[in-house]
């Protein structure tokens, strides 16, 4: 069946079963490989995208449920204020190691900051607990989120 998806502001048609996870539609059908496969069970967060701004595990999201909603991926998140701030902070804090989970980390962090510009450590724990990093970059992820929050606060004042 054909579904129309709004990905990063562009509407694209895909012909797949309605229960196909959004992850595989993005990666294999649309060729947007920035979103990663980690577990297929919403246990690791590597596949995190935004659906209408909320962090969403694309590996367990049927494509039919995303129709008519705004899907944002790592390829497009830099166009949002929070996404751009997080990406810059990730470079400044030298967060990534192997980097495989970082698309998901950045998507989760930017959804957090878009909804909560001044997160506490507890808020960061709650927002990021679903994203695992086998390289153990958590300390720098936390630092990156705090730096991004600061730069967003400065940006909104000016």
């Amino acid at each position, binding site marked *: 069946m054909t579904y129309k998806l709004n990905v990063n502001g562009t509407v694209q048609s895909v012909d797949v079963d309605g229960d196909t996870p959004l992850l595989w539609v993005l*990666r294999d059908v649309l060729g947007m490989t*920035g979103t990663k*496969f*980690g577990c297929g069970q919403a246990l690791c967060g590597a596949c995190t995208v935004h659906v209408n701004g909320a962090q969403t595990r694309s590996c367990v999201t049927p494509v039919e449920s995303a129709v008519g909603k705004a899907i944002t991926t790592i390829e497009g998140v830099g166009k949002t204020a929070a996404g751009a701030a997080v990406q810059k902070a990730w470079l400044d804090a030298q967060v*990534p190691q192997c980097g495989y989970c970082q698309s998901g980390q950045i998507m989760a962090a930017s959804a957090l900051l878009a909804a909560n510009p001044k997160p506490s450590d507890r808020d960061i724990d709650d927002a*990021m607990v679903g994203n695992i990093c*086998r390289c153990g970059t958590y300390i720098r992820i936390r630092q990156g989120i705090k730096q991004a929050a600061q730069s967003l606060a400065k940006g909104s004042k000016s």
Partner: protein
Amino acid sequence: MNTSRRRFLQSSGALVIAFNLPAVIGPASAADEKSFAPNAYIRIDPKGQVSVVVAYVEMGQGTYTSIPMLIAEELEVPLSSVRVEHAPPDERYYGNPLLGGIQATGNSNAVRGAWEPMRRAGAVARTVLVQAAAQRWKVDAASCRAEKGAVVHAASGRRLGYGALVADAAKLPVPDPKSVTLKPREQFKLIGTPAKRLDIDGKVNGTAQYGIDTRLPGMKFATIAISPVAGGKLRSVDDAAAKAVNGVRQIVRLDDAVAVVGDHMGAAKKGLAALKIEWDDGANAKLSTADILRDMEAASSGSGAIARQEGDVAKALAGAAKRVEAVYGVPFFAHATMEPMNATVHVRKDSCEIWTGTQVMARVQAAAAKLTGLPVEKVTVHNHLLGGGFGRRLEVDGVVRAVQVAMQVDGPVKLVYTRETDIQHDLYKPAFHDRFVAGLDAQGTPVAWSHRLTGSSVLARWAPPFFQKGLDSDTIEGAAETPYAFPNMLVEYVQHEPRGLATAFWRGVGPVHNVFVVESFMDELAAAAGKDPVAYRRAIADPRAKAVLDLAASKAGWGKPLPKGVGRGVAVQSAFGSYLAQVAEVEVAPRLSWERGKYRPVGTELRVRRIVCAIDCGPVVNPDTIRAQMQSGIVYGLSAALDDQITLKDGRVEQTNFGDYRVLRMNEMPRVDVHIVDSSAAPGGIGETATACVMPALANAIFAATGKRIRRLPLADQAVPTG
């Protein structure tokens, strides 16, 4: 593998590999005629663009920054201007000098192996470029110097960028790498300074290419079910329902596996779930972990190959004031790299092309050649960034599966393991059984130390020439050589290969097991002697061990009072050519559970509050990477030591995914303080050190906090009541 290039030397029970420097400074890399490529690692084009071919793969540990730093230091170019390329499979030029010439990245030896050869490679290129400029200006080369990608002649104020010199440089003879002069350490501009990683721009914007991101015209996507019991076979498969799934194109049957090929992974996975498979489980059908551990324990009752012998342990034990005995054990661990096993393969009539991320390029090429019957040179391998390695990608099994599937598919096919297949068909970190006996004198000082370790030798399978006289250098590292002086010492190794699963290198390799048991037992001896754990170690530790112990202890506030339920533990190690000490601080605290709109206490849990590290790895290349690797190794070690183990029931791995194979999460991350010792020692490894040291530091902290001495990993459920 070219074994004729290797020589093995027996030295104090460990195997040391000799290598010739010229063997690793190969001839020019395949370059266009207009570029200057004095060796296999450096290419400079007429625009001055410097490309560095890195023989060590990037799996997060920072080699795509540290190795270019070594070259850039001597080549005199800004690091940010260097472009990094993956090395192709070719052991003549990209073989690892510390792994007997095998083209492999592992054992924390990239900087150790590259430290001198890569600086020489950079110095060779710089020498020729300076010579080219001097000829152009008709001046003495000694009156010119290189800086920031250019040669300058200070006396006349002339300056030529490297790009303008490549045509002349390419015509000049390349000097012997051994003849060029290297900078003394005090003249380093780049080495030792915190450098920005060269590999992370794409890792934050989604453009970084891992093997799993390969896209080819007309490619298909596949996933696989492998016999759940090792040694089992595919008996039959009913694929009618799978074939009816929209997007499923083909079912591929192998002797012990079945793959579904489709238009996308969603279709392949749905098809796989629809298969009705019958397996012939074979001889391991009833095997359980308890059987394996029982076999291993039985094997450990005999004597083993002697890894280290000093003095007379039996006599010293007989005369000791106190005797302490203990049995330790570590379980099997999975690697669980974030990027699951995958490879894309296109088998044609006369060639084979592979896209993957591997720690062993040449082995991938050789394995594909063997399977397809093609000559090695007809197999092309494209390496990628690795979404985690940790030793998992030192194995070629995932690529072998992809080639087996691709041999039955028309056109390119990408095989991706599900997470469940990745965890259940890993090659696991070996389990071990360790018996200790020590004798203490009247003052509590150890006068006898006996350690018999029993378990699998990975090296015996992975590189058989390294296993000699019942020993290999990896399995005994951290046991045969400890940081301590024991006057009477016996370390024996009993090789015991488990049934029903394969073993492999895992971050921390030999030391990750040995340091846990040795440093836990040392803590027991300190307790038996009634001594402070730091002071007890310090009294018999070698000078570098003492230095890291003192630094970690003082930074951790060792000896300062702690609240009830909180404890500090210490561990020190000498491994991978580096010294490391860690102090862990843990607490047994109320476990909070989100119930009825707020966090409420439900039982207790173990919480790791802080880890303080002191590391002496010799010369520091990139201090930022050292800090990152300490944090990284600690998380990898904590995850495993707290919660993880792979177990078998009815021959099948019981763990399935990140729900039952736990990885430390953001809310559990302790504070980590890293202190780097200013050291003049030889270069040491970094990537695996912290994984080993954190396990005993944690176990010893649990003892301090709870009084429980836990001798078998994982620790968390034994440390506090579950519920």
